[in-house]
Structures are given as C-alpha cells and as structure tokens.
C-alpha cells in the first residue's frame, strides 16, 4: 500500500510540474515580447542591448512626433463615450422595459457590429458618406465608426445590470407614487444602473483607444489616432521609437484594464 501511495504522489507531482512548466512557457510567450518592447523603448541602442545605457530620448521623440495622435485618441474616445452614454443608457432601459420581439430584434441589430469585421463597416461608411467632404475629413467620421462598434458593449453592459436589479418593478413602484417618467428614469433607473454604466464606459474607452481596423480606413492624414500612429511607427521608425510609443500606449491602457478587472471582481463575475 505505501508503494502505491508513493507512486501516486510521484505521478501527481510530475503532472503538476509538467502543467506548471507549460503554463510558464505560455506566459513567457505573452510577456517576454511586451517586456522587450518596454526595455527597447528606454534603451539607447537595442542592438547593443541594455549596456548601451538607459534613456528617455525615444519617449521624448515619440511625444514630439505623435503627441497629436495621443490627444486625438482621447478626444475621440471621450466623444464616443458621451454619445454611447446618451444614446445607450436610455435605450438599455427602453429595451428592457419594452421587451418582446421588437426589442430583441433591435438588440440583435445593434450587436451586429461586434461580429462583422471592422473593415466591412469602414468600407460601408466610406461608400455612404465618403462624398460628404467636410464630414469625411473631420474627427466626427472616426467617432461615428467608434460609436457603431462600441455601442453594443455599452447597451449590453447596462442591460445586464438593469436585469439583475429588476428595473421593471422599481419603475412601476415609482409610477404608482406618481413620479413622471423622466423623473423616474433620472432618479431611480440611472442610479441603479451605475455599475453597468461604469463597466460599459471603461469598455467603450478601452476599445476606442485601441481601435485600428475601422480607424485605419476612416482616418485622413489630419485625423490620426494613436493606433494609426503606432502602425506608422512600426513601419517607418527605428525599433526604439516604435517601442517607446508602444510603452506610452501600455501606460495609457493598463489603468483602464485594472479598473475593469476590479469592477468585474466586485460584481463577482469572471
């Protein structure tokens, strides 16, 4: 009997070690290039390695060359957020209160852009609105693309929270006390949807900041966002500058990621 137990222990130990090594290998595949990119962004000469010295000159150069793209990315992300909030939150309420076939159909349609490649949506927008010169050349054209792409995430995130707090009963309770519809929406519905609105907002901003597929087709030389600048630097700049630019992107996106994870944990999902 002790022999069998020993054999079982050894086998379990081997399985555990094998799985751990495999997991570490996968983690290395994901994290090593990110680490390389961070290191290269602050190294004087990537070819000669870290012993060539550390520097912030590449970051300074990125700021000089691409500050505009960073600013515009934030402007576009917050404009997208404003529109998805204004249109998405009331819509989530209406879709949930109304229910039925029409509501499901609308939900299905606004979710389509999640499944359809950004390239197709961008082409469609270009074919339809490409002739409206002023609109096509402005930031708004990119914002429109981002709104179409991110709207389902806002609506679904808010709807998910509305569904858990039984918004229908709350709404009817408010109505029985004689509160008008818009007051109920503002005083009862919106405060109850805050966790969903927050989660949706983080999602929208993160997606908008990183969006490339649509934006590449919709941008003009005067309307470049950060991912467009990134692609440009990957194609035409030395590795150190491209890395420093990527580093800037990491610094922007990581707080958003952490906030999203924090909210998800607090809500006890995932």
């Amino acid at each position, binding site marked *: 009997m002790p022999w069998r137990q020993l054999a079982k222990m050894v086998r379990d130990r081997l399985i555990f070690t094998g799985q751990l090594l495999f997991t570490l290998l996968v983690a290395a595949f*994901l994290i090593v290039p*990110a680490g390389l990119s961070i290191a290269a962004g602050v190294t004087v000469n990537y*070819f000669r390695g870290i012993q060539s010295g550390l520097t912030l000159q590449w970051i300074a150069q990125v700021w000089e060359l691409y500050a505009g793209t960073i600013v515009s990315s934030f402007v576009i992300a917050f404009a997208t957020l404003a529109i998805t909030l204004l*249109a998405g939150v009331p819509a989530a309420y209406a879709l949930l209160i109304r229910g039925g076939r029409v509501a499901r159909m609308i939900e299905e*349609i606004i979710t*389509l852009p*999640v499944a359809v490649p*950004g390239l197709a949506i961008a082409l469609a927008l270009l074919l339809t609105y490409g002739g409206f010169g002023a609109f096509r050349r402005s930031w708004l054209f990119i914002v429109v693309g981002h709104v179409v792409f991110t709207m389902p995430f806002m609506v679904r995130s808010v709807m998910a929270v509305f569904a858990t707090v039984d918004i229908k009963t709350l709404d009817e309770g408010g109505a029985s006390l004689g509160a008008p519809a818009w007051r109920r929406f503002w005083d009862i519905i919106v405060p109850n949807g805050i966790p969903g609105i927050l989660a949706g907002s983080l999602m929208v901003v993160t997606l908008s900041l990183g969006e490339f597929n649509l934006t590449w087709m919709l941008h003009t030389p005067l309307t470049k966002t950060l991912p467009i600048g990134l692609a440009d630097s990957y194609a035409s700049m030395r590795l150190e500058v491209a890395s420093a630019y990527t580093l800037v992107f990491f610094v922007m996106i990581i707080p958003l990621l952490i906030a999203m994870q924090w909210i998800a944990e607090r809500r006890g999902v995932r």
Partner: protein
Amino acid sequence: MSHRGFVWLCLLPLVVLTAAFFLMPMARLLVTGADGPRGIAEYLAILTEARYRATLVNTVLLAAATTLATMIVATVVGLFLQRRRFAGRSLLIAVLTFPLAFPGVVVGFMIILLGGRQGLLGELSTRLGGNKIVFAYSIYGLFFGYLYFSIPRVILTIMAAAQKLDPGLEEAARSLGAGPWAVQRDVVLPALTPAFVASGAIAFATAMGAFGTAFTLATNIDVLPMLIYTEFTLAGNLATSAALSVGLGIVTWLILAVARSFSGNAVAAAG
C-alpha cells in the same frame, strides 16, 4: 407624455444612429457589391476566381489552425490555473490576461520583437550557431499573432466554465475507479463543451476577420482581410472589396451566432 411615448423617446437616439451609420451603410455595401462589371456574380467570385478562392482557403486553414492550437493551449493552462493553488498563481493569471486590451497592431509588433529581423529568436538562434530564425513576416507570424491575441480570452472563458463544474462528479468518477486521464476525458472535457464552442468560435472569427496584425506584419500575407484592403486601396476595385467584405461579415456573424446559441452568451470578435 405617456409612458409608452417616453420609452420610445428613450429608444429614438439609438435607432436613428444605428439606421444612419450602420444599416444604411451596410445596405449600400450590399448594393455596391453587385454593382461591378460582374454584376451580382461578384458575390460568387470568391468561389469562382482561382486567386480569391486560394485566399479564402488560406484564411480558413489559418483560422482553423489558430483555433485548434489556442484551444489546446488555453485548456491545459486554464484548467491548471483553476484547479491548483500555488504561490504566484494570481501573478501568473495577471500575466496571462495582460494582453487582453492589445489591439491587433500591437500584437503584430510583439510578434516582430519575437520573430522579426531584429527579433529575440533570431538573435538566440544565431548565437547558438544555427540559422537565423525569422518567421514574423509570413503566415506563421500571423498564426502566432492570433495565438497571442486569442490565448488570454480563451483562458478566461475556460477558467470561468471550469469554476462552475461540480467537483462531486469528478470525485464520483474517481471513486468508481476512473484514472486521472479517464476523468478528464469522460467528465471534465464534455462538461466544458459549451465553453469550447463559444471561445473557439471567437478565436476562429477573429482569425478570419482581423486586419491589424496582418497589416503590421506584412501587407502581402495572403488572407481575406488583406485582400479586401488591397482590392479597395490599391486596385480601387470597389465592387470586389464590397462583395468580399459582405461575404466575410456573413461568415463571421454566422459562426458567432451558432456559438451564441450554444452558450447563451454574447461573444465578440475584435482585433
């Protein structure tokens, strides 16, 4: 204002935005696809034209290979992380999910840093006296790029699904004499099927339709999104690019719709 009226008013901005900036443009895309020299047959060109067909086959094979590899890797890792408790586990989870918010272009750059002309593997392989390994600017670079993109997503899905499994079932199987492999094969993996279908569909649809990674690695990788892009920008071939992107959109939508009916969850492709 009546309550019904208010509800409609709440819905109005969304309906207007969606109609003007999604439905109308998609309808236009559909019409443009049939507006070329081939007419409505443009939609069949992807099957009848040898060059397009080759690209389609290429894309589907790449997406299938990526999906299979991602599923195997993420299942092993996801189950391991969900089952075992050890020092550094949460750090490992953080590392494995860190790339979730990377856009396709950044993923492409990560692959260049690994397997590009100045990449780590090339450096290591020449130092060890072998040939310089450079794989980034080919379909293999794209394969690893999509792997990089999909692994974190699928790991999360598998972990969430494994958490909901009833450990009693496994214990029962074990007490009935099933070995560890038999328990995995007959109890754990079948119970995870919905999660496999959902996350496999996302990985597949992403690998079919993503554009950023391919664009960063090389503009001449022969996959569908790059074909659409070059037909549109370089060849100015509106009808073909419209028809191809409608086809691609329908395929990715169908894959995700099937997956959703399996899992009951919203699934998203991106990249």
